[in-house]
């Protein structure tokens, strides 16, 4: 049973237990109270270690949080870092030259302005510019991050991206794979990078993705099928 919660409503958690606050909740330093700040579904989960609470909501604008997988565009280059844009008009984030596998002072990455990178947010303080990294900083190894070459980026709602990335049962990618082979990178900032062997398959995937974020899961298969069929037909007409 999900309860909807709005800003100004009372939160049904008491302060006896250490609570970890997620998005949509704000601890007011003056009144020392936890208040919901967004309209959405209240989610409180109790675990052995403590309690977590957040408000589940959809927003179009992505705000960086530590640990998020994101896709960014290099928009600037400094002496020791890149400037990366995660979403249009938002403040840009920093990607240090040292945040790459095997980086050293001499071994600098060779990214250009306009390149796409898959990265992870490693620092996100609201007062400071957020930082991202292209390396697993705990192991120092390449963890699948780095520049994304070829393919295509689709801008979708962050909520849809989260479903694809975190929900193992989410059927979209599985369905897609029954039509074509593809490489995919999912950024929770609402960007999905996709690359197939053939351009027309990429295009079909792209179109399916844009449409599927607006329709119920039950209609996914027919939609994907239709898009692939259209592409094939269009190619045949030529």
């Amino acid at each position: 049973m999900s309860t909807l919660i709005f800003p100004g409503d009372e939160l049904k958690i008491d302060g006896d237990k250490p609570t970890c606050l997620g998005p949509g909740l704000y601890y007011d330093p003056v009144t020392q109270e936890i208040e919901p700040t967004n309209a959405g579904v209240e989610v409180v989960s109790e675990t052995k270690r403590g309690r977590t609470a957040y408000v589940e909501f959809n927003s179009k604008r992505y705000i960086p949080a530590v640990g998020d997988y994101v896709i960014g565009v290099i928009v600037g280059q400094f002496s020791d870092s890149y400037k990366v844009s995660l979403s249009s008009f938002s403040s840009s984030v920093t990607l240090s030259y040292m945040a790459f596998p095997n980086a050293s002072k001499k071994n600098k990455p060779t990214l250009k302005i306009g390149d796409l990178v898959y990265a992870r947010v490693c620092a996100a303080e609201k007062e400071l510019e957020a930082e991202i990294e292209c390396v697993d900083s705990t192991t120092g190894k390449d963890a699948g991050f780095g520049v994304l070459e070829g393919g295509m980026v689709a801008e979708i709602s962050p909520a849809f991206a989260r479903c694809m990335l975190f929900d193992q049962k989410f059927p979209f990618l599985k369905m897609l794979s029954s039509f074509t082979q593809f490489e995919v990178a999912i950024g929770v900032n609402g960007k999905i990078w996709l690359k197939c062997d053939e351009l027309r398959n990429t295009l079909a995937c792209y179109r399916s993705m844009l449409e599927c974020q607006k329709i119920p899961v039950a209609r996914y298969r027919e939609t994907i099928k239709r898009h692939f069929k259209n592409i094939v037909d269009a190619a045949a007409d030529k």
Partner: protein
Amino acid sequence: MMATLGLLTNVDGSSQFEWQDTKVLCSVTGPIEPKARQELPTRLALEVVVRPARGVPNTREKLIEDRLRGVLTPLIVCEKYPRQLCQITCQILEAGENESEFAVKELSCCVNAAFLALLDAQVALHSFCASVSLAVLKESHELVVSPTDEQLRVSLSTHTLALELVAGAKSVQSVLLLDSNGDFSEDDLFKVLQLGEQSCLELAQFLRKTIAEKIKNELVRTELIES
């Protein structure tokens, strides 16, 4: 009375609010990177723009912007987004009143539309908000909520009220704005506050229903997956 959320696709949040013959479309973009002169080191900067139903914006719209900013600033958790900017643009589609004399209905609809658009953009807010316009009629001394253009013309005083609501939008936290003009007494003012409170609470329940509907629509997908 009609409220719609999310009808603009290229902004982070949008809404259209219509009450009687006044109609306002509002868009919200943010938090985004501000221009250097707008940036506030510890808070979210607000850029409030109001555009009239016809003609170009002038000092009249500046005054509406100033009032609107006064209502929205305490509502938004500005401390959560330091050095960021939020653009709030209200386009009045239909004024519903004589623009050279009044701005009460436009202002109250702008407040409601901007609040809904902020909710739609999921900018962090402290509490719920609702706004109504009222007028005291000349002959009958009757207090009416959301007066018509004709009622405004024969009114003794006009009032715009915006309230901050909490606890399920069932109780009033504070008065965010009361802009009263005309000829009125202390008693009139308290009557305005009393009736205004009642109609703000009613309006808030309507707004909650509208938003809840929208959220439920969005959540259908996620629920399906969970089940």
